[in-house]
């Protein structure tokens, strides 16, 4: 129960005011209104509840159903696909794509997160210092995050082009040979990871920046009086106090990164020869990009992705709760 309350009061100063206003409201509600108040409350909620059921719960259910039946194009349209239990999952696990796709998903996610977070934190620390234009420059850093993914992905595609790309032209200035960023199996995964890091830095910067802002300057002053150097202040003050914000930043980053599809699909389509295929692109290829779509296995791969996201979400919530108890 702790999570939704936190989400509800995520608005900064609003929290305190709301927290203070909460008890009398509840008391009055029970005494004077009771039931009718509940009716009104649910009447306002009803559209979203219906919406969630129709457009979230049903697609999810459909997806699970797809993954446990043997669907063909015909039965997909007309229904009546036979129940096959976990056959689709067995097919997926036995597929030679499974191992590499899992590995690529993990590498893509972990490397992206590590660099996005480290660079985002470094930039956030830099921007907390006061200098001219700092607010404007910080705003400009948001640009990569706001651009449509197809825009950034196609721009990176052209920049990483083997013969005419600006990246190779730049490396050429230092005497480097031509790197086949998108067409060599050795480099394709790194290329899409680099593009994804670039897109993710702004989010990390903004969230970590506001986290840093929330740390009282007096703590730093106290640490400084106690003789802590800049390095010590970072490791002994900033880092521990930033831990809750860091945790949520990493969790959201993880959930987003696991889902990343557009960037990879537009830049490499998961290729060449599957060298940048992740679960997300694999699922799409199975379901939509083949002449004969295999909806069952596609849904199975998608469900594995959800399970991965959920596992990390639960780990996070558990860690939060443990912290709350201690």
């Amino acid at each position: 129960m702790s999570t939704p309350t936190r989400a509800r009061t995520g608005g900064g100063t609003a929290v305190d005011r709301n927290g203070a206003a909460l008890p009398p409201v509840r008391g009055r509600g029970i005494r004077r209104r009771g039931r009718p108040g509940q009716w009104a409350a649910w009447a306002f909620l009803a559209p979203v509840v219906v919406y969630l059921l129709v457009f979230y719960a049903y697609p999810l259910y459909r997806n699970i159903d797809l993954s446990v039946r043997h669907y063909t194009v015909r039965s997909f349209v007309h229904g009546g696909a036979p129940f096959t239990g976990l056959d689709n999952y067995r097919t997926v696990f036995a597929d030679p794509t499974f191992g590499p796709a899992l590995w690529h998903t993990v590498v893509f996610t972990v490397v992206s997160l590590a660099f996005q977070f480290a660079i985002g934190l470094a930039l956030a620390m830099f921007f907390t210092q006061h200098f001219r234009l700092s607010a404007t420059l910080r705003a400009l850093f948001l640009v990569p995050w706001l651009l449509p993914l197809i825009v950034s992905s196609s721009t990176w595609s052209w920049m990483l082009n083997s013969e005419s790309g600006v990246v190779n032209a730049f490396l050429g200035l230092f005497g480097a040979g031509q790197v086949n960023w998108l067409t060599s199996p050795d480099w394709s995964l790194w290329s899409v990871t680099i593009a994804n890091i670039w897109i993710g830095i702004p989010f990390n910067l903004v969230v970590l920046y506001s986290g840093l802002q929330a740390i009282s300057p007096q703590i730093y002053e106290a640490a400084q009086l106690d003789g802590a150097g800049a390095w010590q202040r970072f490791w002994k003050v900033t880092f521990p106090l930033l831990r809750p914000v860091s945790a949520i930043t990493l969790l959201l980053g993880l959930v987003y990164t696991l889902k990343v599809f557009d960037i990879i699909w537009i830049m490499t389509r998961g290729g060449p020869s599957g060298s940048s295929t992740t679960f997300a692109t694999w699922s799409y290829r199975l379901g939509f990009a083949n002449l004969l779509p295999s909806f069952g296995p596609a849904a199975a791969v998608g469900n594995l992705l959800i399970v991965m996201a959920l596992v990390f979400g639960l780990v996070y919530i558990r860690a939060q709760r443990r912290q709350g108890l201690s």
Partner: protein
Amino acid sequence: MSRWKTAIGLALTGVMLFPVYWMINVSFTRDTDMRKSPPYWFPVHGTLEGYRAVLDQQLPYLGTSLVIGLGTVALTVALAAPAAYSLAKLRPRGGGALGFVLLIAQMIPGIIMAMGFYAIFLSTGFLNSVLGLIVADSTLAVPFAVLVFTAFMSGIPEELLQAARVDGAGVARTFWSVVLPVSRNSVITVSLFAFLWAWSDFIFASTLDQGGEREPITLGIYRYIGNNNQQWNAIMATAVIASIPATILLIIAQRYVAAGVTAGAVKD
């Protein structure tokens, strides 16, 4: 000292925004210079060929995206604002669980939603329709919108609502005449993001609108890349134009953007 930091800041921003600059540079490059090595670092022989191609071929796509974006905004606000009012001020039993569900809903990968929608739309005939895409795109924004609205509306002083009640306003009237006007800023934040996400959506467009009559701009660019691999100035010109909403957003609504990014993530 401060001047040095500004210089470093400018350099870092320059590195970060180089791809954006490059997109603009390429959009002005002549076809004949496109494969030149090393490339021109500035558009010395600038041309508008690319933009002319966009005007000729991409305008309908842009129009479709605009309609989809605005439709998504309307649907998102209409669904999310009343729900948030309820969660923040009316305290329904079980509301906390709903907040949790919304949090989880954001974790579902787009590909899963796309596959589910594909099955539903196929049987109901909503494939390749603007309305279908509006509904699908709204799922990108609704959970976020409810969370942002709830956070904001929780901060509305209770006295304000009480005053309305004393004046004889019912729950619905209070929402419409007091809560909604006061929440103007969060409506702007939510609308901006809903529009931007709908405008940028690629996965729903490419799965639910394959071969429809009216396709959004993201598909326009995608087909461009697939079809004429050579005409990169036109592709980049389309990309520049597709970035206009994001740019406007950043210029006129920067504080709303920052508010939106942090609203979901940072607590207390």
